């Protein structure tokens, strides 16, 4: 098939996927779920086909790549559609792990390790932490309405579809020039990454550090619960006397 033909296949797949996403988004009742699932399977198959055959990249026939693509996209869809926030977060962990594996496939081992350590190991734990703090595993009122109803799913899906279709069209139709330098795979290890980051991007690295510092201080300043210094409640008159702030010896 020609490249032009694949473009229309890709648009069809994107439309199918958009439809599936529209149907699968939570909207308070489960009636469309099955249809969404069917369309989703179809569009996923289409996507994998496009990835495998449509891009003229023989290396994409690698089975690992296809499996990981499936996990990544499927996980991302579940992140978006799952009505329970904790599951969303856990599916996102899956997305991150699959992305890390994809990075390994692309020869970016260091980035993969960093992705797992920082994203899955720290950022997402924080997400899970906050979600869990906010919502118990099974609240008495059942699932919360704002988790089970999507907001303007139609327009959003259309926007997403147009974006993906545009990008896909550009990716397919562009005559991508051949690679300029050496194949990056051979050189991509921790050492060369470190050399790159610490020499060419040294200033960016410093800036990233400053950014992290500022964010840390900012987060502390925002989230810290202030102790009311000047409006402390009046002391409880009924409390037993003699206990007020007494000093004791340690041992």
């Amino acid at each position: 098939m020609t490249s032009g033909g694949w473009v229309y296949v890709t648009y069809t797949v994107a439309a199918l996927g958009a439809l599936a996403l529209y149907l699968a988004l939570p909207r308070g009742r489960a009636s469309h779920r099955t249809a969404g699932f069917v369309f989703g399977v179809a569009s996923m198959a289409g996507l994998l086909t496009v990835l495998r055959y449509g891009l003229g990249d023989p290396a994409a026939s690698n089975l690992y790549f296809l499996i990981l693509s499936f996990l990544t996209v499927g996980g991302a869809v579940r992140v978006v559609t799952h009505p329970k926030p904790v599951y969303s977060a856990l599916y996102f962990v899956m997305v991150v792990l699959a992305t890390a594996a994809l990075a390994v496939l692309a020869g970016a081992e260091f980035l993969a390790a960093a992705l797992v350590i920082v994203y899955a190991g720290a950022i997402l734990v924080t997400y899970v932490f906050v979600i869990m703090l906010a919502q118990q595993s099974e609240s008495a009122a059942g699932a919360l309405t704002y988790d089970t109803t999507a907001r303007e799913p139609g327009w959003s899906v259309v926007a997403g579809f147009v974006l993906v279709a545009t990008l896909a069209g550009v990716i397919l139709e562009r005559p991508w020039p051949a690679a300029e330098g050496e194949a990056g795979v051979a050189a991509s290890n921790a050492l060369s990454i470190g050399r790159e980051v610490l020499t060419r991007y040294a200033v960016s690295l410093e800036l990233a550090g400053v950014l992290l510092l500022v964010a840390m201080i900012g987060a502390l300043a925002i989230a810290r619960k202030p102790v009311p210094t000047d409006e402390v409640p009046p002391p409880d008159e009924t409390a037993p006397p003699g206990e007020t702030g007494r000093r004791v010896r340690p041992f």
Partner: protein
Amino acid sequence: MTGDVTQLAVWILLAPLMGSILIGMIGLRGLRDRAHWLAILGVAAALVAAVMLFNDLRAIPNAERAAAFEKSHVVYDWFRADAPTGGRGWFPVEFRIDSLTSVMLLTVLSVSLLVIVYSVGYMRDHHGQGERGYERFFAFLALFVFSMCALVLAGNFLLLYLGWELVGLCSYLLIGFYYQKPSAAAAAKKAFLVNRVGDFGFGLGILLIYWRCGDLSYTYVFSDAGRAALDGYETIVALLLFCGAVGKSAQLPLHVWLPDAMEGPTPVSALIHAATMVTAGVYMVARCGAIFTASPTAMAVVAIIGGATALFAATIALTQFDMKRILAYSTISQLGYMFLGLGVHAPASAIFHLFTHAYFKALLFLGAGSVMHAMAGEIDIRRFGGLARGLKITAATFWIGGLALAGFPLFSGFWSKDEIIHAALNHAPILGGLALLTALLTAFYTFRMIFLAFHGPQRLPPGVEHAHESVAWMTVPLLLLSIGAIGAGGVAMASGDFNIHAWLGPVVAPHGEWSGAESHAGGEDLTLMIVSGALSIVGTIAAWYVYRRRPAIATVVPILLPGPHQLLYQKYYVDELYDALIVSPLRRLGRFCFGMDRYVINTLLWLITAVPRSIGFMLKETMQVGAIQGYAMGMAVGVLLIVWVVLAGS
């Protein structure tokens, strides 16, 4: 050997800096009343390193000195820039380590160490608790020592400028130490702004050097090639550089900040407004001898401004009553001497005077601080007197400092001042005469102060029961400094490397730029020595006569001569003059600009913005619904548009 010296220089810089940073980090929480230890440790380490540096330099054989001293010690590649002409366009952190540097380092660090030790006693209340901001004070002092050492060690003009501005900053911080006091805050601001005037010229001079030479390192600029590149520009460059020196060293007409700077704590006055920072200008001119000597005009300007300032400040000092203010004017006057020395081709003598002056002026200031401590902050010499009975050590050391300042024979000031006067008489007799007159006045006002404060019947300001001597933290530095005040003149007579002329010779006159200087060695004109010694004695006796024997004269003179006295007492109305000529017009201009900005330009802007604002208002009412997703949708549409235009369109 050079590596060794470079390392020592790095330590000299790092030790006080580390002290300062550490105090800043843990001072408030951990150290508080112990904060001084880090400062003392840092500066003492730097002093030890400076002594070792001096020894290392002495180890260089005489024949190799000129070459070794011209070397620049690069420690760090700072940054590069395109040079406008020739030159390397390279700005490393580099040091110039030679005999001049070592003399300056020893002076700065030894005086600083003593002043910091003194401050330990001074900055406490009667219960031995540190004042508010105690640790801040020591952090600033250590930072100042770092800045001054950076200035002295600098191997190119960029670093010199860095140190120059850093000492200015420290001076601002320290003058404004009692920032709750409006007068202190104003004085700090004034010092900073007046210095800016001078520094502006200084910066222009450096830029001019860069423009001509394409390089700022001393090694290049002072070399034959560098001087050739500056050919035709020496006068303007030298005058611009001197402009900076005038600001920093408080010469006419930018002297106004220094007397006000006495608002800072007294150790600050002693350290940076008497002994070290204000000498930066002298050091800089001596360092840039290659440029200055190329221009006779510039040399004449230096000499004239120096001589005029010396006399001018001395006359003001005659009438003041505030002890620290008298000392401040005396400092200005002595700095004038140094510039006079530089201007009449006697740089070694100028540096020599700088060296001796550092000790006796620090001594005098610290003594004044001790008096102030005993008098509960009172410093007006009309309010107290006869303190010699209560403050024995302070009075004795103050006497020593006074004698040195007055140029009493055999005290350190005598030797150095004498050399300058000698050179001035040889070079420009009029200036020499002025200098002699100033010497007489110096002796007079010094002993006027001493007699009024320490002798006669004991009088104490209200609220002070009895004058008590200060703690050992304060008296020991006084005693040590008085040794310096007596003995520092000895370097003029010492032999070998310890003779200041022999030691500085290869640096200040390597190519014979300072012609006339090398012929002059200390105190060889016996007649002049006798004359100047006699003048100082006459001044002393006159002071004794007027203020002890016939105090009536002192009260009668202002009444008999109200005009001149008022002129002097009001410091020649310089501040008022500046106020009328510069400050008020500027303020009026500012007010006018502010009005323009506020009413004319703002109206215009308001009109221009009215259109988008009304569009925005309509959008706000219609599109802004308060849901983040709505905005995100807008962003998404925008991204889509960009993708379409950029990617699909091409």
